Every structure is written in C-alpha cells, then in structure tokens.
C-alpha cells in the first residue's frame, strides 16, 4: 500500500471497529471479560485524533498511533496493537520496496513484536494467529505479483477465515485460557477484530469500478 493510502485505510478500519463494539464485547464475553469493544472504541477515537493531527507520513503516523494507543487503551489487545503499530512504523521507515512487500514487512514486524510482548505462539488462539494468517496471505500475494489493493482484500479474507477457524481452537493465553472450553464454538474476539479492521481498510482502498 502506498503511504498516501494509509490514513484513509486506518480511518476506515477505526470506523468499522467502533461500529462493531457491541459484537466485539459479546465475543470477548464468552470466555474473557467482555470489553474488547470498549477498548476498540477508545482505539478508534485515538486513531481519529491522530489522523486529524498528523501529516500523511506513514512512519510518523504509525508511531504516533502506537504511542497514543499504549497510553490510552492499555488492555491486552490495546497494548499489543500499540506494539504492532510501533513495529510496523519502524519497518516502514527502513523499507522502500513495492507496496505489497512493504505491507508484508510491516505485518511481519508487527507479528514479531506481538509475539515478543505477549509470548503467545501460533495455535494459542490469539492475535498471533490472525497476524500470522495475514502475513501468509501477503507472502502469497508477493509471490503471485498481486496488486496491493487486491492483496489487502485477500489478507482481510485470510484474517476472516482464521477468525472462523479459531472457533475450534482452545485458548492458551489471556483470560480466555482460564476456562478454555467456554471459548469453543465462538471465534476469538481479537482475531475477529483484526478481520473487521482489515476488511474495512481493504474495502476503502479498492479502485472505483
């Protein structure tokens, strides 16, 4: 994704997450504490503020966003999203490749940061699974030479598929891991959140037909 599209994509993701707050609360409520939507409402608000303030420099935008989320929405998902933004910002600064490659590098850096901070592995039914699916899809897009808007759309689809797949996975990290059976049959709240945000971002970036 070219840096100029980033504010647009982030704004769309924020709006979609705020709109899905009740659903995210509900999903987090099955095995967690039912507040993921509350956190995402704050994240969305913070994002709008940062977007209104910052220039369109992607690196600055992502680092400001990460810092603001860390300060204002320090729940598990908020802190990990903040880490993801900060790592992605760094990757963006160091990278001048083609859009889909840049996206892959940013998401890979985010995934690494989230794993280091949250100590979850793939298969633990956490954000790590969602980010992993996104990275896998972007890798394929790089290999296939897919255009960046389409790569984004496919990554959103992969995140959605992973969210659905988590329904059969037992949580092994976070609150949901205390009574893991309760989560079964419902998608992981954090993975659903990634899917919703990315789907909105991807839609916002599609060329007009």
């Amino acid at each position, binding site marked *: 994704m070219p840096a100029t599209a980033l504010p647009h994509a982030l704004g769309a993701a924020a709006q979609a997450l705020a709109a899905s707050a*009740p659903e995210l*609360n509900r999903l987090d*409520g*099955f*095995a*967690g*504490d*039912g*507040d993921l*939507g*509350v*956190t995402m*409402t*704050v994240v969305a608000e913070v994002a709008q503020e940062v977007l209104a303030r910052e220039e369109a420099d992607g690196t600055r935008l992502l680092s400001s966003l990460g810092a603001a989320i*860390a*300060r*204002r*929405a*320090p*729940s*598990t998902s*908020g*802190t*990990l999203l903040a880490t993801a933004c900060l790592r992605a910002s760094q990757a963006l600064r160091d990278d001048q490749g083609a859009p889909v490659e840049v996206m892959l590098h940013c998401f890979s850096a985010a995934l690494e940061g989230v794993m280091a*901070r*949250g100590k979850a592995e793939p298969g633990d039914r956490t954000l790590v699974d969602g980010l992993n699916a996104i990275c896998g899809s972007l890798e394929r897009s790089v290999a296939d030479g897919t255009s960046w808007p389409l790569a984004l759309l496919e990554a959103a689809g992969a995140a959605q598929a992973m969210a659905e797949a988590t329904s059969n996975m037992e949580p092994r*990290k*976070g*609150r949901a*891991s*205390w*009574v893991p059976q*309760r989560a079964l049959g419902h998608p992981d709240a954090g993975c659903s959140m990634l899917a919703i945000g990315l789907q909105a971002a991807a839609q916002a970036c599609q060329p007009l037909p």
Partner: protein
Amino acid sequence: MRKLINEPKSFVDEMLEGVLLAHPESLRSPARRVLVRADAPRQGKVAIVTGGGSGHLPLFMGYVGQGLADAVAVGDVFASPSAEQVLEATRAVDGGAGALYLYGNYSGDTMNFDLAAELAQLEGLETTTVLGADDVASAPPAEAARRRGVAGIAMLYKVAGAKAELGATLGQVVEVTERAAAGLRSMGVALSPCTVPAAGKPTFDLPEGEMELGMGIHGEPGVARGPLQSAADVGADLARRLVADLPYERGDEVAVLVNGLGATPVEELYVLFRTVHAVLAEHGVQVRRAWVGEYATSLEMAGASVSLMRLGPELLSLLEAPSRSPLLARW
C-alpha cells in the same frame, strides 16, 4: 443500567477527582491516573507499586497507605493502566531502596508493568515483581503460575507493606511476599453479572436462581454453572477446594478473607464465613485471623470469594501490623 454516573468515558477521572477531594490528607496525584501516599517518597523504604483496572474498589487504590502500598496506577474499568502510568508511579515513590511491583496476574497488566520495569531500569530504578495469582478456578495446581489474581492480594499488600515499613530490603520484602503468595488460595462464586459502564450491558447472563462457581472478578467464566445452592453448601464447596488445592495438613494455621463482590450484603458474608470456619475446623486447620467484608469487588456483581493464606509466625505478625488507608478504614 442502575448506575449513578455521568458520561461513562469520564467515569474513572471523575471518581479520582472525588477521591482526591475526599482524602487530601492521605493521597495525592503526581501524574494523571496515578495516586501515591501523601508522605511519599519515603527515603530508604522499599516502595510498593500496584495498579490495575477500575471497578474493584477498595482494590487497588484502597491499598495505598501506611503499612500498605505506596503508589497505584489506575486503569479504566477492568483495563490495565499504561506502562507510562506505572513508570510515573515508580518515579514518584522511589526512596532509593527499589520498588516491588505487586499486582494481579492479567496479561494486560503484566505487559504494561513489565514494560514499565524495563523503562524504570533505564533510569536506574530497581524493581522486582510479585504477582497475585490466587484463584484456583483459573488453572490446575500444576499450572499455578497461570492463575489469575483475585481478592487474596489484599493480604499480600498487608504482608509486603508491613515488611517494607520495618525497613527490610527489596530482597527481603520480595522473599516474604512470595512466601505469602505461595500459601495463598482463593475461589469465588457469582450470583449476578455486572455491567461495565462503557459497555452499557451486562458482561454475561446469569439468571436469578443460578450461580457460577469460580467466576473471575471481571466476569471471566467459572468452572461450573448451576442452580443457586445454600450458603452452607457453597461455603463448604469453596473451603474444601481451597484446602485440597494447597493442600493443608492438620495443625496448619490460616488467615481467612471472605470477600464480597459488590452487591452481596456483608451479613451474607458472615453466614458464609461461619461455614468456612466449620470446614476448616473439620480439617484440623486453625483460623488465627479473619476478615469479612468488601476487599476486591467487581462493580455491582453479587457473590463472594473465600481466600486462605497459610500462616507461619512471621506472616501472622505482618498481617496484624498497623496499617491505614482512607478507603479501608471507614473511621
């Protein structure tokens, strides 16, 4: 919602304004959403820093005072404080003897406290962490380190705070607090859900006449749901699970905390304690000290938890040492 609030968004900050207006002689705020003892920093004393989500009063803020913690970082309702707040709290109460980070084992909190500890270290501030992880309903004994922290942490503040007040080193405070934590077990039962103001709806459904055994203090699911039992049955079930988890032996001594989750009258907590006491007696375990009341709530959730701390001689005297906080001592 049956709540006396204004904008849900400003709930925590308005609450903090109220706290500072009510207790200016005991508490001050050196940074946003950070409260410290009015007399902090105390030179040469190990500082105790805690924090966690709002909605649990008197936890966490209530345990800031003499013979207790020195600082608290206050999160949104049921949400961790930020690493920045924890760092500010650490700076404000540092007395040159290092700081104990004492809080409950939740991933949001551990990530933010760990980050704060790294940042504090860059500033030359030494910290060590002890986690409250007392809820036996949240993982089997073999994975005790994964357990979440609930009301039992109240007793850890008391132990750590008293030891620090005596002039102990950080290592000594950590040692005794870890020993206390190793013998601490809790479990609770919920009789109603609670509502996070910003969510506007109960976190979960729990119809009248049912109870959920082992529910967490943020409404995390418990180990069993079923028809509401009598206080005698609930109390015996909780006490037996706690005794078996450690496990206790005949002749052991224990401190007991029966905690109300919010809406349950203190009268009922005493009825529950009566059974817990009887079950402990059956097992040959002697109650040396008991506290009954609200020590860690979940907003307006109905229900209660029982915490047991196995005692050694030092622990009992630390638990009985003087302490004072405006939110704990009503007079």
